C-alpha cells in the first residue's frame, strides 16, 4: 500500500476530490506511479501528443458503469481499456492514447481502487496504449455506485484503410472471432442473477494488435464490429441495415462454449443476444478468408452476405434446418419462469 495517504481512512473521502493535497497524493501514488509514461507524468491540464503519422485520426469515448466491479475474467479496469481500444480498432485505427476519468463515490475502498488501477495498467501494457491524461472527481455517498470510469481513446488510421458497417457487399463472408456469450453470463453469475455453479469467465481482451496484423496482410477487410451490448444478433442487424444487404448465417457455425450453452438452455437466454467484450464480427471478401483465419485461431466463418435488401435483414438457418429471422435486441433478456 503506498504511504502518504491517510490509512486510517482507507476509503475515498470528499477531500480526495477537493483539488488539494489529498487529491494530489492520490493521483501521484495511485495513478501516475502505476500508469507512468512521459506524457502523463507532466500532469499538465492537457496532454501533448505527437502527431507522428499521416492519415486520419480516430477518436472514441465510452463510460463504464458495470456492476459488479470485479467478475471472473476481468473487472471494470480491464473493461475500460479493452472497450475503448477495441472500438478504435473497429475503424482500423492503431490505438495510441487513452484518457481516464474516474467518478468515485465517497467511501469507496482505496484497496479496490488500487486493484482497478493495477488492472488498467496491465491491460494498457497488453494493448500497447498509453494513458496520457485523466481526471478524478468524488461524489457524496449514495450519489454514485462506487466507481464510474470514462475513457477516451485516440488512434491513427493507416493510409488506405476504410472500415465501416456500410461496406458489406453480396458475396462477402462473415466471421466471428470466437465463442460468444461468456462475458454477460459471467456477469450474471457474479451478480447472483443465475444460481449455477459454473466457471465461466468474461472474454474481455484488447484486440487491437490482431487487427493491426490483419490489415497488414490483406486489403479485403470490409467491416470489423464488436458485438458488445445487444450481442451478435444486434451487431449483424446493424451491418445488414447500414449496408442494405441480406445476411445469412448458420446456427451450427456460431461458436458457443458448452457451459454457456448449458446455462442458456436452462434459463431460456439466447446466446445471440449476450454481450461480448473480446470478440469481433469480421466482414471480408472471399479472397481475404485465409488471412483472417491465420490471425484468429478460434475464428468461425458463420455466414455471408447473400444479396441486396433495401432495409437490411438477417436470416439464420437453424441447426434443425429451419429458417429464422434475427432481429435486434428489444429489451434486456430475463430468465424464464419454467
Amino acid at each position, binding site marked *: 500500500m503506498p504511504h502518504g495517504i491517510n490509512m486510517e481512512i482507507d476509503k475515498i473521502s470528499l477531500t480526495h476530490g477537493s483539488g488539494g493535497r489529498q487529491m494530489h497524493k492520490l493521483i501521484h501514488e495511485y495513478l501516475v506511479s502505476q500508469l507512468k509514461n512521459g506524457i502523463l507524468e507532466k500532469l499538465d491540464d492537457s496532454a501533448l501528443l505527437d502527431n507522428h503519422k499521416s492519415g486520419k485520426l480516430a477518436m472514441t469515448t465510452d463510460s463504464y458503469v458495470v456492476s459488479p466491479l470485479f467478475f471472473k475474467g476481468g473487472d471494470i479496469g480491464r473493461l475500460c481499456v479493452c472497450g475503448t481500444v477495441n472500438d478504435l480498432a473497429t475503424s482500423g485505427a492503431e490505438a495510441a492514447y487513452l484518457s481516464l476519468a474516474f467518478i468515485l463515490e465517497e467511501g469507496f475502498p482505496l484497496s479496490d481502487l488500487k486493484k482497478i488501477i493495477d488492472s488498467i495498467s496491465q491491460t494498457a501494457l497488453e494493448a500497447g496504449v498509453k494513458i496520457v491524461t485523466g481526471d478524478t472527481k468524488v461524489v457524496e455517498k449514495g450519489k454514485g455506485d462506487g466507481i464510474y470510469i470514462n475513457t477516451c481513446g485516440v488512434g491513427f488510421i493507416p493510409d488506405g484503410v476504410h472500415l465501416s458497417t456500410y461496406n458489406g457487399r453480396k458475396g462477402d463472408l462473415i466471421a466471428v472471432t470466437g465463442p460468444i456469450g461468456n462475458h454477460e453470463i459471467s456477469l450474471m453469475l457474479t451478480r447472483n442473477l443465475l*444460481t449455477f455453479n459454473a466457471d465461466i469467465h468474461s472474454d474481455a481482451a484488447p484486440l487491437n494488435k490482431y487487427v493491426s496484423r490483419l490489415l497488414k496482410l490483406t486489403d479485403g477487410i470490409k467491416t470489423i464490429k464488436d458485438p458488445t451490448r445487444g450481442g451478435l444478433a444486434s451487431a449483424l442487424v446493424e451491418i445488414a441495415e447500414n449496408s442494405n444487404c441480406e445476411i445469412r448465417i448458420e446456427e451450427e457455425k456460431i461458436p458457443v462454449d458448452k457451459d454457456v450453452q448449458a446455462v442458456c438452455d436452462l434459463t*431460456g437466454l439466447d446466446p445471440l443476444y449476450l454481450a461480448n467484450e473480446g470478440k469481433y464480427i469480421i466482414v471480408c471478401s472471399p479472397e481475404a478468408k485465409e488471412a483472417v483465419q491465420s490471425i484468429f485461431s478460434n475464428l468461425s466463418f458463420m455466414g455471408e452476405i447473400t444479396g441486396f435488401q433495401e432495409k437490411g435483414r438477417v436470416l439464420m*438457418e437453424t441447426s*434443425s*434446418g429451419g*429458417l*429464422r429471422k434475427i432481429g435486434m435486441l428489444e*429489451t434486456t433478456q*430475463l430468465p424464464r*419462469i419454467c
Partner: protein
Amino acid sequence: MSVTKEKIQWIRSQISVPEGKTIKLMEVCGTHTMSIASHGIRTFLPREIQLISGPGCPVCVTSQDDIEKALILARKKNVLIVTFGDMIRVQSGHDKLENYNNVQVVYSPMESLKLAVQHPDKEIVFIGVGFETTAPLIASTIIKAKKNQIRNFSTLCMHKTIPEALKLILSDKNSSIDGLILPGHVSAITGSQYFGFMEELNTPGVITGFDALGIMESIYLLSQLIGENKNSILNNYQSVVKKQGNPKAMKLLKSVFLPSDCYWRGIGEIKSSGLKIREKYHQYDAQEKFNIDDLHIDEPEGCLCGEILMGKANPLQCRHFGKKCTPSQAVGPCMVSSEGTCAAWYKYGNR
C-alpha cells in the same frame, strides 16, 4: 449435415396429411412456443400443418387484477417483492413492477427465504405464478418458512393448473384443434396419466420434450394418430416423464394448495383451474396478510391476447401487434413474456 438435421428431414418426409385436409395442432406450453419459433420449425413443416399456441405461458394468462395486486404490494413501504423475471414488465395501467426499486428478480423461490432472513424489518412477498411445474417449488418454500418460523414472508398466489383450461378450449364448439403437443415440464411432475381426460374429449396428445427433434417426432406421431382417428395420449419424452410423474412433488403441491376457481386473462373464470393456499398455511397468503380485495380491472381495449391464448386468433390479426405493442412497450402479456406467442412471432418472424 448434422445427424439431427438428417433425422429431422427424414421425419419430415414421413409426415403425410390426407388430401384437402388441414391439421391444427396446439402446443400448450410456452417453452414449446419459443422452441418452435427459434428453430424455425414452421418453415419446414408441410403447409397443411398449422401450429397454434396455447394457454401455457404463465405470464400471458395472468389477469390484470393479479398484476395490479402485485403493484399495490410493491407500493407499500416495507415490502420487498421477489419475482421471476418475466413478470416485471407486464403493465397495469401505466405502471409495472420494473418501475419499483423494491422488486428483486430471482431464479428460485427459495431465495425469498434467504432475503427474509437478511431483511427482518421487511415483508418479503413472492409473486407466485406458474403451473404444476413451479407450484411444488413454492409449496416447499412455504413449508420451509413454516418450519423455520419465518414470519416476514408470504406469496401472492396466482398459480394455475392446465387440465380445466384445456377442457374448456377443446370443448368449445368453435374449436378446430385436432391434437395437442403436451408440456414436458408439467408432465414430469404430474405424470402422463394426468392427461387421460383428453381421450373423452376426442383429442389425441403427445407429451413432448423441448428440442427440435422431439417436437418434430411428436408432430409426426400426432399426424399419425389423427390420420387413424385415434384419441390416444402418447409419451414422447420418456427419458424424463414417467406415468406416475413425481409423486413427491405432487404431494407437496397438494399439502399446501387447494384447487380454486381462477380468472385467466382473456379467457375468463375457469372452475377449479387455480391453486389457493390451504387454511393451515394462511399466514403465507399475501392477499390475506395485506388484506387486498379482488379488483375488477378491464383488459386493454383491442388486445387479442385472449383469443390468441385460446388458439382462435394469431398475432397478425391483432391491430396492436408490432405497432402499439412491441416487446419494449407491450400492451398485452403475450408480448411481454419471452414465451408469449406475440413475442415469439415478433422476434422470429413467421410465415
